[in-house]
């Protein structure tokens, strides 16, 4: 069900997010910054860990990682790096009850909230497993990135296998309502970073970085947030 780019499927195939499968992902500075913000030697809950490609990098930084993943096959691969991986659907009502560990230093939600029916509720539930000084590291795609603006102007909002218009995305965010979502769940935003697109590397990188910083709504490909209660 749900051939990418053909029909809109509720495919749970998280395998496609593994950079070995979609090399494009690694071109963004997203991963580097998320890892910096997570830090070294932390107890991390990685929500939507896919095959564990981020977990591996965090374990290399002496973190202990627990994963949550909806796709059992991807979860099995993530077990290579994670201390434990829970196969759970965050759209289920009481998923948090299955997480027996608590007091995580960091909860990483890297491009996860846009797949959820009720992202505000999930953010609220996560507070139960955060330690007193724990924090969230969140990444969300920008729906009003200049490329999407031009596409929709031409009438094209075509779902695809990955990216801003991933066919399993239920939610779309601008900077304003990304902030609203996080703050409405009772968190304070401590840090913000706009990432820029992947194809524009090389000489033009500093220019794109400057544009993303000065006009994140237009030039940020993703919004990264660090938030605390």
């Amino acid at each position, binding site marked *: *069900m*749900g*051939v990418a780019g*053909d*029909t*809109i*499927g*509720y495919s749970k195939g998280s395998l496609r997010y593994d950079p070995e499968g979609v090399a494009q992902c690694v071109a963004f500075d997203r991963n580097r910054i998320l890892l910096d913000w997570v830090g070294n030697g932390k107890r991390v809950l990685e929500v939507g860990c896919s095959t564990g490609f981020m977990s591996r990098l965090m374990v290399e930084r002496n973190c202990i990682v627990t994963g949550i993943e909806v796709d059992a096959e991807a979860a099995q691969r993530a077990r290579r790096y994670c201390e434990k991986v829970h196969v759970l659907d965050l*759209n289920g*009502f009481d998923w948090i009850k299955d997480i027996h560990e608590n007091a995580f230093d960091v909860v990483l939600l890297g491009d996860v909230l846009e797949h959820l*029916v*009720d*992202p*505000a*509720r999930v953010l609220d539930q996560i507070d139960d497993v955060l330690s007193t000084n724990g924090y969230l590291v969140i990444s969300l795609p920008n*729906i*009003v990135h200049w490329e*999407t*603006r031009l596409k*929709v*102007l031409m*009438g*094209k*909002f*075509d*779902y695809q296998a990955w990216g801003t218009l991933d066919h399993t995305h*239920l*939610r*779309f*965010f*601008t900077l*304003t*309502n*990304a902030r*609203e*979502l996080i703050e*409405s769940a009772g968190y304070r935003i401590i840090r913000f970073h706009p990432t820029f697109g992947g194809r524009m590397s090389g000489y033009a990188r500093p220019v794109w970085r400057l544009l993303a910083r000065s006009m994140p*709504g*237009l030039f940020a490909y993703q919004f990264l947030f660090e938030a605390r209660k």
Partner: protein
Amino acid sequence: MDLSAYNAGHEFSYDLRESRLRKCASLIESLPVGRLLDIGCTNGNWARHWATRGWDTAGIDISQDYVAAARDAGVDARFCDLNRDSLPFGDTEFDLIFAGEVIEHLVDTDGFLAEVCRCCKRGGHLIVTTPNLASFENRIRLLLGVYPAWLNYNLSGSGHVRAYTPRVLKRQLLGHGFRVLRHTGNWVPFIPQYFVDDLKMPALSFTGDLLPNLAMDIIVLARREK
């Protein structure tokens, strides 16, 4: 609250005078009378309207209250949560399936269309209406970086979880064996809907036929081929 509870509690009202339903009515009138399923039948007004014109009607809804109201009104209404259940009908039971403003509330839209296809006769028809993400108003909004109308970033407001453009809907219908015979729109929001809509200004209705890709709502009539 989960999506099912949200949808069940959400009051959905429609007005038979809105251009979306008037255009759907003329599409239905062009078809031979038979058995009709109204998906999301609410209080049963729409199904009853067609029953008086000779159609053998049935309806489903996610709200028990609406199902009871529709039954009181004499419609064969049944409870069904499309995010969880299959359609409570047999294979190839219907000549026409009407899904007005429903698909944008569903997570597994492929599963839904597979069910619709199962219950629709070969050569039978399907009418789908859903908000157009690429309406004129939304194109301008997105260009200016403003969040599009009828899209929700959390479980609130209209409770929509899916956004369609005519291209995407047509392609998905084709993938499920439905060939689109007719695509039209309700009206083009050259002026934002907040100020003017097709109820305040019924004359706007022709703009939807003229420029369906820019209309507020997508209206398609499709036929089950496979």
